[in-house]
C-alpha cells in the first residue's frame, strides 16, 4: 500500500536528518544543522502525509478509523509525535543541538515498525473492544506524553555525555539550559500522561465496566506517573538539578518503554497492541 511505502521512506529521511545533525555536532558548523532541520521537516511532512493517506485509505476500505489501532500504527504514531514535538521545540528555542539525540530515536522506531518481523502493516478493521471515541483521545494523549518523555530522556543522555566526556562542549547548550529543557519536557509529558491515564480510565469504565483493574499496562502507567511525580517534587521542593534530574529522566523513560513494550510480555487486557 502506498502509505506504508511513504512511511518506509520516512525512515530513511529521519536517518539522513540524524546524520546531518551529527555533522553539525562533530564539525561544529551551523550550516549542517540547517540542512538537518530541513530534512527533518521534510520527513515530518511526508510522515504526516503517510498517516493521512492511511487514514483515508481505511475509510475507502469501509473500515474507517484513525491510524492508531494496532502495533504498527502505534509505532508510526509514536515516531510522529517525537518528530513533531522535537521540531516544535527546535523552532521555538532556535536551537538545533538536541536533534542529534532525538532524531535517531524517531528513526529507530520507524525502522522497527518497517522491518521487524511479525509486525502487521495492513489496515485492519476495528474489533468491538476498540470501537470507541475514546481510542483517539487516549492514544493521542499517551503518545504525546511518551514523546515528551523521550525528549527529556535525550536531554538526560546529552547532559551526562557532556559532563562525562566533556566533548563537543562548544555546540551543546549549557548545563543550565539543558536542565531547564529537561524539566519543561518532563512537565509536558507528565500533563499528557495524566490526561492519558484519565482518558484511559474513562474508556475502561465504558469498555470493561471498571475504571481501574490493575491490568499490567495500567499498573505500569501508574508506576511511570509516580516516577515523574517524584522527579518533579524532587526538583520543585528539594531543589534537585542537573545530574540527578538526568538520571531521573532516564529511569522514567525506562518505565515508559516498559509500559509501552515490556508489558506485552505479561498477560494483559491491552493485548491487541501486539
Amino acid at each position, binding site marked *: 500500500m502506498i502509505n506504508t511505502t511513504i512511511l518506509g521512506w520516512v525512515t530513511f529521511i529521519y536517518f539522513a536528518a540524524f546524520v546531518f545533525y551529527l555533522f553539525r555536532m562533530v564539525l561544529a558548523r551551523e550550516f549542517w544543522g540547517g540542512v538537518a532541520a530541513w530534512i527533518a521537516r521534510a520527513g515530518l511532512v511526508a510522515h504526516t502525509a503517510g498517516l493521512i493517506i492511511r487514514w483515508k485509505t481505511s475509510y475507502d476500505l469501509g473500515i474507517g478509523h484513525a491510524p492508531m489501532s494496532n502495533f504498527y500504527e502505534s509505532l508510526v504514531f509514536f515516531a510522529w509525535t517525537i518528530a513533531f514535538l522535537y521540531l516544535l521545540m527546535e523552532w521555538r528555542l532556535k536551537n538545533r543541538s538536541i536533534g542529534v539525540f532525538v532524531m535517531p530515536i524517531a528513526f529507530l522506531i520507524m525502522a522497527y515498525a518497517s522491518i521487524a518481523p511479525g509486525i502487521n502493516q495492513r489496515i485492519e*478493521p476495528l*474489533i*468491538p473492544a476498540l*470501537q470507541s471515541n475514546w481510542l483517539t483521545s487516549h492514544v493521542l494523549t499517551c503518545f504525546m506524553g511518551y514523546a515528551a518523555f523521550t525528549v527529556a530522556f535525550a536531554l538526560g543522555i546529552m547532559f551526562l555525555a557532556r559532563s562525562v566526556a566533556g566533548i563537543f562542549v562548544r555546540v551543546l547548550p549549557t548545563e543550565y539550559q539543558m536542565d531547564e529543557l529537561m524539566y519543561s519536557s518532563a512537565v509536558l509529558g507528565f500533563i499528557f500522561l495524566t490526561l492519558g491515564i484519565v482518558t484511559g480510565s474513562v474508556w475502561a469504565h465504558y*469498555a470493561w*465496566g471498571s475504571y481501574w483493574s490493575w491490568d499490567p499496562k495500567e499498573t505500569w502507567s501508574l508506576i511511570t506517573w*509516580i516516577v515523574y511525580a517524584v522527579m518533579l517534587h*524532587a526538583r520543585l521542593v*528539594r531543589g534537585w538539578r542537573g545530574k540527578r534530574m538526568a538520571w531521573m529522566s532516564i529511569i522514567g523513560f525506562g518505565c515508559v518503554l516498559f509500559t509501552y513494550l515490556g508489558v506485552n510480555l505479561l498477560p494483559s487486557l491491552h493485548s491487541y497492541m501486539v
Partner: protein
Amino acid sequence: MSRKKSGIWSFFSSVQLAIVLLSLIAFFALVGTIVPQREAAVELGARIWPGLFSFLQKIQIFDLYHSVWFFLLMVLLSVNLIICSLDRFPLAWRRFRTQPSPWSEEVWKNISPNDKFQTKADLQQAADKAERLFKKKYRTGIRGDASGGIYLCARKGRFSLFGVYLVHLSILILIAGALIGSFFDMEAFVNITEGETAEAVFMRGGERMELPFSVRCDKFTLEFYENGAPKIFQSDLTFLKEGRPVHAGELRVNHPVEFEGFRFYQASYGAAPGGKATLAISRPGVRPEVMNVAAGYTFDLPGGKGTFEVLKVEQNLMNMGPGLRLVVRSGKREEVFFVFRHIDQIKEMNPGIIEQVPMFNPGLFRPYTFSLMGLEEKYFTGLQVRKDPGTPVLAFAAVLLVGGLMLILLTYTRSVWVRLKSKDDGVEVAVAGRSYTNKAGLEKELKYLLAELKDNLERSA
C-alpha cells in the same frame, strides 16, 4: 516560622516522606505485575512448596492491590498529603494576599546591567507609556512616584499558588473514591438466552442476587468482518418491572446500558441449547417430508413406523459445519448418527468416509434418508452487571487533578517591577522580578518586557 512543631508533625509534613511513600507504592505496584495475582496465583501454588505458598498467601502477596500493606500505604500517603498541605497552606495564603509594593527597595539590589537601558526621553511621558504597556500586559499595575523615580509593579498568575493544593486534594478524593468503590461496588454476571428473562445476577463467588427488575434479551447479534475478525457483539435488552417493559436498550461493547443505577456491559456470548433445525426426511417413492426440530425433542417418523429424537443441534458440529445428532428408534432397532448440512462436501473431501464411519451416513436407518436444510442457532449473551457509587467521585477528582496540574505547571506566580529614573539627560529604565517557583521563566519574561519597553519608548521618541 513562629509556630513550634512537634516531631510527628514535621515527619508527616515532609516531602522526603512523600517521596519514600510514592516509591514504595510504585515498588508494590511493580511486584504486583510480576507475581501472579488472585486467580492467576493458583497455578503458582501447584508448583511451589505448599508451606511457602500459604505463608505468601497469608501476607497477601497474591492480592497485593487489595492487601493491608497497600491500604496502609494509602492511609500514610493520605495523612502525609493532609499534614503537608496544612503545613504549607498558610504561607501560600499569605503570599496570595500580599500585594507587592512599588516602593520595594530590596528588589533593586543586585540587578544586572542587562536588566536596564538608557534612553533619551521625558521622565513623565516615558512613565505614562510604560504604564500603558504594563497595564496591557498585566491588567493590573500599581504606580508609585517617589523622589528616586517612578515605579510600576504588578503580579500575575497568583492562583498558581493553589495548584499544588488542588492536586493534593484531588489525590485524596481519588483515594476516597477508590475506597467507596472497594466497599460498596458490586460486580455480577448473568447469562441470558435469546428470548429469555433474568430476575437475578450472580456474584464472583456464585452468590445469587435478586435485581429490583428483570432483564430480557430479545436478540443477540454477532457480525464478522470479511477477514473473520469480530465486528459487532450486540444484545437487544428490555427491562421489565412487574412484567411490563419500561426501558429498552441496545448493548454493545464500549456502549454499556444503564438502568436504575445498574450498568450492563457486553462481556461474552455463546451458543445456547435449543437451536432450531429444518430437516427433510425422504423415502424412495414418497415425497420428502420437511420438519422443524429442536434438540431434546422426539418426533414421529413419516409413515408412523417409529420415532426419532434430536440429541444435539450445533452450528459447527465437530468442526464440520452445521449438523445434528439424532437417534432413530423403531421397535427393537435403534441407530445413532449424524446429519450434516454439507454432507456432500464432507464426502468429497474424505472419500470413503461413509463406509468407514457409518455414523456419518444420513441414510443409516433404511429406508429413510435425512438431510439438514437449515439451522437457526440460538445464542446466550453474557452480561457483566456493575454498580459503583465511587465513580462520580473519581470523575470529579480527575477533573480537579488535571486542572490543578495545569495551574502548577503551565502558569506561575511572579511579581514584576519597572523603575524609571532621570539619569544624565534621559531616562534609565530598569526591570526586576520575583518568583517562588520559576526563576528561568521569570528571567525570560523580564528580558522580553525590557525589550518591549525599549521598543515602545524609542519608537515614538
